[in-house]
């Protein structure tokens, strides 16, 4: 065939160049102080290695520990790292106890031996209406699902699409680094989830929309109606089940655990959570954690209203304060 030679040489050239790009990414892509907004399976795989995790204290939690609305370096865990304490922030937006459990399965499957694990217990995530109640972060789900038992997966809602395109997408992402880590690469280059969003962000700053949106979304108590379920928790709650399983996993691997009762803005949420039922559920979770071998750090009422951006995310100053408290209360090494 006349053009077979052309086709094969062009294909070989293209593949060689793409392979070289992959090598470049492998060499260049940094280890980040925390996960990006939309981290990929490929990046997760790179992060969960013994070299990265051995001898360090892992923080596995939700956006509160991740550092919501703050720069990476402003999160409490980043402050600990800056102080020379060997920590790794594995928290992300959308974290919850099922996510913590799945992440721990991945950590131990990699052969890593962390020094300790610190995770936060956020009472809003035990609400069945919470989006992370039964759902794993996509990258975590994709990597961890094969490691989970039937008794785990039966409690969760899988979100991985089963279309042919989605399967090919996952397959390609498994060995083609540029493709698999495209979201992480874009985040590094553009500081946003993609180039167009970066342009949109600049545009919104210039037009004043960012400020208008912030004003429109200023946290007021009515926005949190229904966020916290005050029905008594029990062992049928998915969050409770995975809390217990996480602790069992940590005991099995002889890893000390710290359970933070998440700092909560009682001033903002006064009318919803300053009731006996809220404290009853928090005590229940604390008891589960202690029974499971974790040291409980009750930070629920430890912060003033000024330390919060909203209901449970701390300001820069609040995160600094949290870092100090963690140094004081947890044996994080030095």
């Amino acid at each position, binding site marked *: 065939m006349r053009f077979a030679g052309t086709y094969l*040489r*062009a294909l*070989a050239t293209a593949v060689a160049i793409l392979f070289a790009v992959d090598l470049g990414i492998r060499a260049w892509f940094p280890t980040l102080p925390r996960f990006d907004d939309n981290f990929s399976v490929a990046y997760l795989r790179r992060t969960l290695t013994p070299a990265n995790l051995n001898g360090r204290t892992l923080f596995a939690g939700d956006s509160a520990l991740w550092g919501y609305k703050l720069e990476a370096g402003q999160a409490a865990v980043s402050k600990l790292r800056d102080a020379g304490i060997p920590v790794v922030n594995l928290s992300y937006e959308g974290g919850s106890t099922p996510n913590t459990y799945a992440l721990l399965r991945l950590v131990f499957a990699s052969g890593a031996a962390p020094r300790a694990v610190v995770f936060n217990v956020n009472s809003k995530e035990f609400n069945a209406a919470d*989006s992370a109640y039964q759902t794993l972060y996509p990258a975590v789900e994709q990597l961890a699902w094969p490691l989970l038992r039937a008794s785990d997966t039966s409690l969760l809602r899988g979100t991985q699409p089963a279309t042919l395109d989605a399967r090919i997408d996952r397959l390609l992402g498994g060995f083609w680094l540029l493709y698999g880590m495209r979201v992480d690469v874009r985040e590094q280059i553009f500081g946003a989830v*993609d*180039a167009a969003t970066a342009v949109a962000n600049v545009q919104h700053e210039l037009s004043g929309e960012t400020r208008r949106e912030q004003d429109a979304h200023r946290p007021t108590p009515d926005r949190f109606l229904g966020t916290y379920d005050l029905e008594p928790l029990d062992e049928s709650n998915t969050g409770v089940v995975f809390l217990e399983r996480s602790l069992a996993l940590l005991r099995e691997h002889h890893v000390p655990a710290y359970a933070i009762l998440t700092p909560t803005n009682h001033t903002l949420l006064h009318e919803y959570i300053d009731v006996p039922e809220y404290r009853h559920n928090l005590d229940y979770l604390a008891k589960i954690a202690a029974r499971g071998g974790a040291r409980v750090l009750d930070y629920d009422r430890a912060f003033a209203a000024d330390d919060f951006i909203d209901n449970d995310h701390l300001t820069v100053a609040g995160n600094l304060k949290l870092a100090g408290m963690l140094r004081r209360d947890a044996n994080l090494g030095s």
Partner: protein
Amino acid sequence: MDERFLDVPGSRDVSDVLRTDPLYRLLGRYLASPWVLGAAIALLVVLAIVFGPSADSRFIYTDF
């Protein structure tokens, strides 16, 4: 061809496009080389991946 859709002097017929378009004249000259073709394809693929949209990878999560 029949009556034009509002005849305007200087407008081009469809068949002129390929022959006179400078992009295709340029491409035709260089892309015959398989190495250039392969490099051009790799470049376009990298650009599409780096500059493409991430809508499908967004995890829909509401923190409030």
